[in-house]
């Protein structure tokens, strides 16, 4: 039933999250919000890479566009919160469109490198113009949760609600897009662009469109990320963020949206798990400082070696294999 009516599934999952948010402590709620934001950002990479075959290592830059757009709209025009999210999506989508125009002419490593250079170059723009607030960045305050939610409704729970709702809507919408003509076109382009061209699909336009949509989602994630830390600054969107998101996408399985939670949860959970493990032992600084990095990178290497398509796709393939037997 859930397969046929995804809306019911999404609603049930939403209710589950809602109930959960009242049961867990403040830290988990904050981490939950971070997971939801990663879900959106990773989905945007999966859409780009898994469905249209383009690679971006500079998604952090697109998140930054979204974050800054939202903060500027809020601080300068006093835009209501929901509108700042819309503006974030539009601004990042515009940036993505421009980047997509360049990207459609490039492939694989060229695109990866270009987006990488963008991620390094963009933050220095923030320091060029005083409107972006320089190194310390801008405040982005979405305000207190509505009083009607009660006295003890915390700020982080409010963030969690907003981020979860945004993630649910984004994924639901993305699912529908994938099933539409656009989604099929993207897949065709990804599979073989010559064949797609012969089938009458405008390859270039579809690639640009995919980049634009992906960037819009990234912009939303950027605004939400800025919301959780109440600020935007160049340092909040470092190269490491872009790499983490690409990592999350591969851990999730880059060809399917189904595993998007896996990557998001892993990215949030690993540092904390390592912290807990390390604090149990009286280990040296060198070990404690480098263990998280070591663990994430080892996990990444093992994933690409043994389940390059991601765990979900792997399971599906194995099941199909068994059925076919």
């Amino acid at each position, binding site marked *: 039933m859930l397969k046929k009516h995804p809306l019911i599934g999404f609603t049930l999952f939403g209710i589950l999250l809602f109930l959960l948010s009242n049961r867990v402590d403040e830290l988990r709620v904050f981490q939950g919000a971070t997971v939801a934001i990663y879900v959106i950002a990773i989905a945007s990479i999966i859409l780009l*890479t898994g469905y249209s075959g383009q690679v971006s290592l500079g998604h952090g830059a697109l998140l930054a566009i979204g974050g800054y757009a939202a903060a500027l709209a809020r601080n300068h025009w006093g835009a209501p919160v929901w509108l700042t999210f819309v503006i974030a999506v539009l601004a990042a989508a515009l940036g993505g469109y421009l980047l997509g125009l360049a990207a459609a002419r490039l492939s694989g*490593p*060229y695109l*990866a490198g*270009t987006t990488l250079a963008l991620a390094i*170059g963009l933050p220095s723009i923030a320091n060029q113009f005083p409107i972006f607030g320089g190194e310390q960045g801008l405040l982005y305050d979405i305000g207190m949760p509505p009083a009607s939610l009660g006295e003890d409704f915390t700020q982080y729970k409010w963030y969690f609600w907003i981020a979860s709702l945004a993630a649910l809507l984004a994924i639901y919408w993305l699912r529908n897009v994938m099933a539409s003509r656009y989604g099929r076109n993207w897949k065709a382009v990804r599979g073989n662009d010559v064949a797609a061209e012969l089938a009458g699909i405008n390859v270039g336009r579809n690639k640009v469109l995919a980049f634009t949509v992906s960037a819009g989602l990234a912009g939303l994630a950027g605004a939400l990320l800025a919301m959780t830390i109440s600020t935007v600054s160049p340092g909040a969107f470092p190269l490491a963020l872009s790499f983490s998101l690409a990592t999350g996408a591969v851990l999730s399985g880059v060809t399917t949206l189904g595993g998007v939670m896996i990557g998001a949860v892993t990215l949030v959970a690993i540092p904390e798990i390592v912290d807990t493990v390390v604090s149990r032992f009286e280990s040296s600084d060198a070990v404690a400082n480098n263990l998280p990095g070591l663990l994430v990178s080892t996990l990444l*290497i093992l994933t*690409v070696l043994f389940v*390059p398509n991601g765990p979900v796709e792997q399971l599906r393939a194995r099941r199909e294999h068994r059925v076919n037997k």
Partner: protein
Amino acid sequence: MVQFINMLLIGIGAGSIYALMAIAMVLVWRSTRVINFAQAGMALLSTYIGFELVQKTGNFWIALPLAMILGALFSALVEILLIRTLIKHSTSGPVAGIVPIIATLGLLGFIRAMIGFIWGNQDIQIQPPLSKVGFKFGEETISLSPMNLLVLLSVLAMVLVLGFIFQKTSLGLSLRASAYSPEIAQLAGIRVGAIRTIGWAIAGAAGAAAGLLQTVNGTGAVSPDSLEFSLLLTFGFIAAVIGGLESLPGAVLGAVVLGLVLAAVQIYISGTLVFIVAFALLLLVLLVRPQGFIGTKAGRRA
């Protein structure tokens, strides 16, 4: 006039550092069609090994070739253990585009963490083997020192040796053949696997030279997260791409152009623009002349 000459010298000096890295990236690209984002990490590891060797032997001139050999071995090992399996598992589909990139990024993180484990997260120091004081012409000290000259000569030597190998030897023929068409090369009796490993090994040696020379030519300090190496990777990559990614002279040319443009921007316009200009240059070349300065048109979409 003096400033202009200095600008040229500074640009070429910086370009020669980028060139060493660009050469390593081109070699890996040609042999396996992978952009090795761990190249900087491997160069970093070689630099640390070079540091240990300088400590043990007290002689930079022994440490440099040994570090290059060890760098080559490590690089070959990476190809055998990681890249080979990777190429076997994911040859097609969207993952084929992203998986090697992610794998090398993973390797980069792994190497950094291992260096942090072994050597800690503080700076280590290597002293330069040659003077960094510029040559004097009359009263004027120019922006070219014996150390700069060593880097320049290393690049030149590397290009000549590699050029000789590629153009004049049967190994070179095999390297070129397996780069352009692995299947046909295989049919022609070339052991494509072994040839790929050799490509990676040479790149590892070039990367080791890039790492050590950049360090002693620069501040002499290295840490696992050294910004110098992240920049070396990015600028080496930009140089390789604007040079065409297929050709060694192209990589060197790209690196020198990049070095000159950035030096000119820094001296005549503003030092705040270097990163933006580097990105703009990359984008410009990709849009106007996608095959790079030297490169075939088909390359970009491969």
